[in-house]
């Protein structure tokens, strides 16, 4: 990129609207200021300090201080009981969410592609979206039992809506002229699915998976709390019964941490897989 630049090349590299900027590495300060982590840490510190002060002044039996909670969390992380509970809970999470993705993504795509089908299915999706799950759990447990099955089903029911709705939206927002373009080059229906619809819907599908993970964790804990009382939910109930507030909060912190971790992993995958969507949206804004 030095002496041998032809006028034509120069026009392309430095011209008006001539595409990508050269990727220089921004300074360290710039990168720290641009990252969101420092701001998150700052707000968290403020939050922790406020919690600590409030609990020390007005806290009672059920509100532990921030430091007590941190200590309890550390204690829990060292106990075999917690890891056993995590293992049991996460079986339901993995199976239930796996089913939600494997069933939800294809059904979402089919619903997005074929409008007539959607007319039939729309009402059920809405039902899934608005039903108060707490009301269903007892019925579910009564019909399926207290075992893994009912927990898996509940996690699936909780999370599948997000996956289906977002996959459907993703297919719908695929530019119809891309389908026409593919057809003009002689693409078969199968090629349209694999080369146009699926990649085009991928960003929205990944968003659905990320949102679904959050709901799946909620579902996992809820069913254990309300009915089955095993594993993580069981721990929460136990500590609540014994008024062990720090441990109760510690358990919740660990569940939160797991959910946040899973969501970050999902977000990371989303970014990796769909970089093109971010460049286009940033540009068309």
């Amino acid at each position, binding site marked *: 990129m030095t002496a041998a630049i032809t006028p*034509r*090349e120069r026009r*392309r590299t430095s011209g008006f*609207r*001539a*595409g*990508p900027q050269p990727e220089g590495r921004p300074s360290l300060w710039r990168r720290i200021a641009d990252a969101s982590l420092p701001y998150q840490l700052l707000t968290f510190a403020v939050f922790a300090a406020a919690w600590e002060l409030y609990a020390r002044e007005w806290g009672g039996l059920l509100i532990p201080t921030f430091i007590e909670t941190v200590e309890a969390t550390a204690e829990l992380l060292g106990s075999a009981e917690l890891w056993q509970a995590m293992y049991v809970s996460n079986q339901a999470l993995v199976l239930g969410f796996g089913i939600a993705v494997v069933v939800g993504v294809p059904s979402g795509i089919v619903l997005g592609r074929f409008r007539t089908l959607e007319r039939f299915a729309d009402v059920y999706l809405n039902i899934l979206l608005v039903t108060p799950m707490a009301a269903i759990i007892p019925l579910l447990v009564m019909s399926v039992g207290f075992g893994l099955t009912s927990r898996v089903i509940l996690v699936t029911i909780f999370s599948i809506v997000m996956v289906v709705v977002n996959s459907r939206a993703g297919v719908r927002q695929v*530019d119809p*002229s*891309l389908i*026409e*373009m*593919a*057809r*003009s*080059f*002689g*693409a078969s229906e199968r*090629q349209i699915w694999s*080369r*146009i619809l699926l*990649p*085009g819907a*991928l960003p929205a599908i990944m968003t659905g998976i990320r949102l679904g993970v959050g709901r799946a964790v909620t579902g996992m804990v809820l069913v254990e709390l309300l009915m089955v009382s095993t594993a993580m939910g069981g721990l929460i109930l136990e500590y609540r019964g014994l008024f062990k507030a720090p441990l109760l909060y510690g358990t919740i912190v660990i569940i939160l941490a797991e959910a946040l971790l899973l969501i970050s992993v999902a977000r990371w995958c989303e970014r990796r897989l*769909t970089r*093109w*969507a971010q*460049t*286009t949206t940033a*540009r068309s804004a």
Partner: protein
Amino acid sequence: MVRTQTDPLGSDDYRKERLMIEIRGLSKSFVGQDGGRVEALRDVDLDVGENEFLTVLGPSGCGKTTLLKAIAGLIPWQDGDILIDGTPVRGPGADRSMVFQNFALLPWATVLDNVAFGLRMRGVGRAEREERARSLIAMVGLSGFETKRPGELSGGMQQRVGIARALAVRPRVLLMDEPFGAVDEQTRRLLQEELLAIWEEHRLTVVFITHSMEEAVLLGDRVVLMSARPGRIAEIVPVPLQRPRSSDVSALERSGKYVEITAYLWDRLRDMHEEHRPATVAR
């Protein structure tokens, strides 16, 4: 490279040459938004000679895009026939490829994969399609951009990708639907010149839809003037400007013939707009 025969002077000349596209009595209507039938095309007859550059001009709603999509085999029609080199059109085919107004590039794919897309759909192996795509990318002046994605390119560059993709499948007929309608004026002029240069060197049949009189005259051997409601061919205007034209477009645009034909086309188009004005008000 340069045409050996005399310059095309009119539709009658093309009847004597080998025909690439024959359209006979094409009619197409569809149900409009208000429930009534809209006649998009009524009884369209058109011949396009081999290696002819035909431009189609008309007010919006005259069915010019419908005509192009019918030739591409993308839409069904009610009456009439379209023959490509004697073979009736029954759907999209390997002998035709299309360039779209909004580029229609895959935003997730690189320039190389976009250009190779048509070849991939036709089952061309990876090595061959990438080699062919690379040479087409070089032809439209995008070497060095193979790994970029469309979002990183300007509109003009995106349409170069669209043209390269259409040419990569080595079509006999290139169908262009207002390809330069979505780029800025300066880029459009550059693209017009480059398209002329590519066509002068490689010779293929082109049907080019446009709403610009200047563009229609600059590029076309003949200009098909269409009128709206129902869409039909109002007139076919020959463009007796000499070829090759890409070398000195500016001189061409100052020539008397160019100005005359452009002015004539505008007169006709304005009449069409006036014809429809009272009718629309009366409704």
